């Protein structure tokens, strides 16, 4: 497919602006660019068709199951988009006076109250634009706390489990801490003895997600946070897996002190191909004063005003937060309400266990117990028997019209596939996915060569394999060919070509 640069012709353009109604004033000659920028020169027809063609080469939640573990790809409600497009929300300048933006301030204030109820924390900042940004924010809050206690030079270490998402240690490093890794036990949870061995007077804190990255709720969680507190550290909760916990358990009750949430995961705002998200950070009462930026507070005039904490450590971004994303999330929580949020978490956990149980005879979960909203299977044995790797398996799933699960994460499971169906999937979709996975598993034993070549760009394979059971005709209809086969990533990294050169 052509790049937009390879379409159009010199001089072509859409008709956007009119004539200038004031005398033209040019900048000083020395301050002007020498050449016009290399940008596409296309008509509106060409723009419309180009992006339409690109959109057909994308796979969204609108296209099918998206069982990416740790990402919570649930359905993105249509009404959220309508509300976020209201001109009363979109046309407002971030530096407009507080009296003129009472609606926006109300959005933040109401969202904060909902998050307080779900998590048990006392106050939130909405500045962070994503989960990792939230982690950084939370760790700086912990740093500010230790600074206020005069412990900045002694409490330099953050403990992170070996199963942690890469953003955790990266965030700790950005916050100036040394990262200490602690192992998981054979049940996939925190090894308490190993943890006790690494805590000390140099412990600033611990970063953890619960349920953890193998989808298990750590039964010792209260003991874990107690160990850290006894050493004088604080506990940070990575809220990426909160979809398993709304109305089920609250991070504050587990003993955590600070956390972030991912509105683009748990609260159904769309992923957009990689953002924008929103990662609000909440904390216990005595830490609220350290939070960055400002929070809506009711003044004596009865109006909401943005106020910074008395000991705020700074600012994470220029303005108030990814506001329209927060509008979408608030619309969602208002719609679900107290019972709907509980229902969402319950069914997220149910759907994951349903799939886990139905696949357990061929692909048992790495930890063979009731999971939370996601579970991990290891394809290590399959690879040893057939040579088919987790990567091959994932690419084969593409041909069945299913987005592959998360691959090769967490690092403590070899040849891992992490499956998170979410609660917004109909039972039929789950059954189809289970059936597809079972078929791919079978094919691994008979057709490992075919698997190494997945995904295929032509449909020849459809006529080779004839499944013996019913439903074959349906599946053939849905089979997907991709527009490219596996790309050469080695050349892409050795000889980076990152822009169109003309």
């Amino acid at each position, binding site marked *: 497919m052509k790049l937009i640069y390879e379409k159009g012709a010199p001089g072509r353009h859409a008709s956007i602006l009119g004539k200038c109604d004031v005398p033209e004033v040019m900048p000083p000659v020395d301050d002007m660019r020498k050449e016009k920028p290399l940008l596409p020169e296309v008509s509106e027809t060409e723009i419309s068709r180009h992006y339409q063609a690109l959109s057909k080469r994308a796979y969204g939640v609108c296209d099918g199951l998206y069982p990416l573990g740790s990402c919570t790809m649930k359905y993105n409600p249509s009404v959220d988009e309508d509300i976020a497009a209201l001109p009363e929300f979109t046309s407002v300048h971030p530096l407009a006076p507080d009296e003129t933006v009472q609606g926006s301030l109300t959005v933040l204030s109401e969202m904060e109250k909902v998050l307080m109820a779900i998590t048990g924390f006392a106050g939130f900042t909405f500045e962070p634009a994503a989960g990792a940004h939230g982690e950084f924010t939370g760790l700086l809050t912990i740093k500010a706390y230790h600074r206020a206690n005069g412990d900045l030079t002694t409490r330099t270490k953050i403990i992170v489990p070996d199963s942690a998402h890469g953003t955790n240690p990266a965030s700790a490093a950005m916050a100036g801490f040394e990262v200490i890794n602690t192992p998981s036990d054979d049940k996939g949870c925190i090894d308490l003895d190993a943890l006790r061995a690494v805590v000390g007077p140099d412990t600033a804190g611990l970063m953890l997600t619960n349920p953890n990255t193998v989808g298990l709720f750590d039964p010792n969680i209260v003991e874990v946070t107690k160990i850290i507190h006894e050493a004088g550290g604080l506990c940070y909760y990575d809220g990426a897996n909160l979809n398993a916990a709304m109305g089920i358990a609250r991070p504050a009750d587990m003993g955590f002190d600070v956390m972030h949430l991912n509105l683009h995961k748990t609260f159904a705002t769309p992923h957009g191909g990689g953002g924008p998200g929103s990662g609000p950070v909440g904390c216990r009462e005595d830490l609220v004063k350290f939070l960055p930026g400002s929070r809506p507070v009711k003044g004596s005039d009865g109006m909401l005003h943005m106020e910074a904490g008395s000991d705020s450590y700074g600012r994470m971004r220029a303005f108030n937060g990814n506001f329209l994303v927060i509008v979408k999330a608030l619309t969602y929580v208002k719609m679900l309400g107290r019972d709907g949020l509980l229902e969402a978490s319950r069914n997220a956990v149910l759907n994951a266990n349903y799939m886990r149980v139905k696949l357990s005879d061929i692909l048992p979960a790495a930890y063979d117990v009731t999971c939370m909203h996601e579970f991990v299977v290891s394809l290590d044995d399959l690879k040893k028997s057939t040579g088919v790797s987790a990567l091959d398996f994932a690419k084969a799933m593409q041909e069945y019209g299913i987005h592959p699960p998360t691959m*090769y994460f967490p690092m403590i499971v070899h040849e891992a596939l992490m499956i998170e169906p979410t609660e917004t999937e109909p039972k039929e979709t789950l059954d189809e996915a289970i059936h597809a996975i079972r078929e791919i598993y079978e094919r691994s034993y008979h057709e490992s060569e075919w698997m190494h070549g997945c995904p295929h760009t032509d449909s020849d394979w459809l006529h080779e394999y004839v499944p013996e059971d019913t439903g074959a005709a349906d599946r053939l209809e849905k089979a997907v060919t991709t527009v490219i086969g596996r790309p050469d*990533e*080695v050349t892409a*990294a*050795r000889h980076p070509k990152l822009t169109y050169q003309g």
Partner: protein
Amino acid sequence: MNTPENLKYSKTHEWVKDMGDGKFEIGLTDYAQSELSDLVFVNLPEIGDDVTADEVCADVESVKAASDVYSPVTGKVAEVNEELIDAPQSINSDPYSAWLFRAEDVTDTEELMDAAAYNELVAKEKQ
């Protein structure tokens, strides 16, 4: 797997060549390159940097991973192999010619093994 007799080896899979003129040449073994698979980039130390035996001095990148390189000696970096910047794949194709850096003023080497001992170590790791 290739393990030249005339070199010494570290437990972290680097090879060392005593160049005879006070300098030591350091690279990655054949076993290391095969485990790392296609290398796409090398982050070399700078000339003049101090290196310490058994501490990280460089790293190599494949598409999906970044791996630390540990210095087998304590000393100063005298030269770096600039050719590797444009052609990191020579470590894969010719690991014993594709040296990473040369060290001088070497005061300490960690316990280095000969080819036979290194082959034993690798055999154990493969199990």
